[in-house]
């Protein structure tokens, strides 16, 4: 009787989630494929309700939303999965952007590489930065870690300003882009044309989504959840907590670096102006708004954070105010975010879940203590 009442009180989103998780994998694909196709077609369709024009070019708005989604996905590994508050994530984003710029821009003294090579390179280098930052600092917890990461973000920005080869505010022009020209001779991946860039980012985001999803379902993912919920308890369960925190940090950093390199390519210009603390906070807002720990949630959060200022350009100047208020309201009414983290772990995947909700197993109560404990607990 109580369960029926709870059923009706449960939010619709959660019901949707449960319906989704109860579908067999093949049926999920059948639903998923049209959705993905629709997402790919978005900048071409330019639906009037969603369109951001004339304020912002719609394909570029789509690219920005997709880029934000990729960032949020990476930050979610750190904040949502492993529970490590990272306020300097923009630092990794900046490192990725600078890697792409340094190896492709004619303004840089370094050897030139094809742009597409700089994408994995940016991931490897930011991952290295993640390990370098994480090794000394991941022994800290909670607020202390947040302060150190905040400092890291600022250090990267200041280094870009004061180290001469990084060219401060002058920056790097003509950052590379993927090859290819249209029949009329113009570039496919031009800065003014958001659509191919959007497709590239969406493809990479889906790849990262699969990677992160697989990690989540593995031993690594279980360890992250345990660390997030109670680090000491995780440790006495035999989880090498430091190692897994470092992994979360490195993977998060790599995805941040990838999105930075993509950003640099699309804009075609990198200088020290775009990597400040408010940007970091905006990334974090996307994760928290969407639902820290829920992959789909953070994608939604990223879309909201990126799309709203583009769509309602008259509000763009007030975006921090609006997102601040939105976060406060959300913390009151739905502290887990729009789509909260899943309560269950997917430890053994689907069959474990169906076992849990489908048919509870009969457990023998032959122990001598069974009757006694039932009495004791009931009283």
């Amino acid at each position, binding site marked *: 009787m109580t369960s029926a009442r709870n059923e009706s009180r449960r939010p619709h989103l959660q019901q949707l989630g449960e319906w989704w998780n109860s579908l067999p994998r093949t049926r999920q694909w059948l639903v998923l494929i049209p959705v993905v196709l629709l997402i790919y077609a978005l900048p071409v369709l330019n639906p009037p309700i969603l369109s951001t024009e004339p304020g912002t070019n719609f394909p570029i708005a789509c690219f920005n939303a997709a880029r934000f989604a990729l960032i949020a996905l990476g930050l979610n590994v750190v904040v949502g999965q492993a529970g490590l508050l990272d306020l300097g994530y923009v630092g990794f984003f900046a490192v990725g952007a600078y890697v792409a710029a340094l190896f492709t821009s004619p303004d840089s003294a370094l050897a030139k590489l094809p742009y597409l090579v700089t994408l994995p390179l940016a991931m490897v280098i930011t991952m290295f930065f993640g390990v370098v930052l994480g090794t000394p600092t991941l022994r800290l917890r909670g607020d202390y870690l947040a302060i150190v990461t905040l400092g890291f973000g600022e250090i990267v920005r200041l280094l870009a300003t004061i180290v001469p080869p990084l060219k401060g505010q002058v920056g790097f022009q003509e950052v590379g882009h993927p090859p290819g020209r249209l029949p009329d001779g113009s570039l496919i991946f031009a800065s003014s044309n958001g659509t191919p860039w959007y497709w590239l980012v969406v493809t990479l985001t889906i790849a990262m989504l699969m990677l992160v999803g697989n990690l989540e379902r593995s031993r690594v993912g279980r360890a992250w959840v345990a660390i997030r*919920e109670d680090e000491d308890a995780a440790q006495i369960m035999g989880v*090498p907590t430091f190692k897994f925190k470092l992994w979360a940090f490195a993977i998060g950093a790599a995805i941040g670096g990838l999105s930075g390199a993509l950003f640099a390519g699309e804009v075609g210009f990198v200088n020290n102006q775009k990597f400040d603390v408010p940007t970091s906070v905006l990334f974090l807002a996307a994760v928290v708004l969407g639902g820290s720990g829920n992959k789909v949630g953070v994608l939604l959060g990223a879309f909201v954070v990126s799309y709203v200022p583009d769509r309602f350009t008259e509000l763009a100047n007030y975006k921090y105010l609006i997102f601040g208020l939105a976060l406060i309201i959300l913390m009151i009414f739905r502290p887990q975010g729009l789509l909260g983290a899943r309560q269950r772990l997917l430890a053994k995947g689907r069959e474990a879940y169906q076992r849990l909700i489908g048919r509870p197993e009969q457990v023998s109560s032959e122990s001598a*203590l069974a009757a006694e*404990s039932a009495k004791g*607990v009931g009283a």
Partner: protein
Amino acid sequence: MALLELSDVSVHYGRIQALCGITLTVEQGEVVTLIGANGAGKTTTMRAISGIRPLSGGRIRFQGDDITRLRADLRVVRGISQAPEGRGVFPGMTVQENLEMGAYARRDKKSVPEDFDRVFALFPRLAERRSQVGGTLSGGEQQMLAIGRALMARPRLLLLDEPSMGLAPQFIQQIFRIVTEINEQGTTVLLVEQNARQALTRAHRAYVLETGRIVKSGTGAELLADTSIKEAYLGVA
């Protein structure tokens, strides 16, 4: 050779010394209890043994091997498992998932289902609550879950930190009976308790801790009969 041997163990929190040279042993198959007032260093001793708290002096040996500098997660692999003070269940995981986390460090995954059966036989209530989230369990159920989770690691040595804390009297009785049952099934137990009478009744041997030092030791029965213990810990004048 003792299963667990602490020799001259000291632990500092910053400049404050919490343990001042503790020496104790736990033999294979025993229930040993550590009693003492709040702040005597009982939990610190447990944290030192499980490896969450580094030592500032002394040695810890387990099965004859020096584990003083061994990481906490590797001590679990060796066979030391703890049900922490304040239970420490994973609040967002179900009972089932909490127990699965208990078996995280196990190498022999095939025999894990047996241990599920064993834990559910000891705590039938956990079987009923299997798909319920840890944070929504009652205090007693969380304690059962913490003990059950520690057993899922198939420990050689089970560390129980204040299992009776905050529980109703009939629950306390039940938990202590289960401690004895676990021990009879072959697991060595080191039990920290404020509930000295119960602990001393159940334990083979006991140590009394006062402000970071061991001030007395003996069999459970000896300490139960000791006048100064009676006055200090058993509430008998």
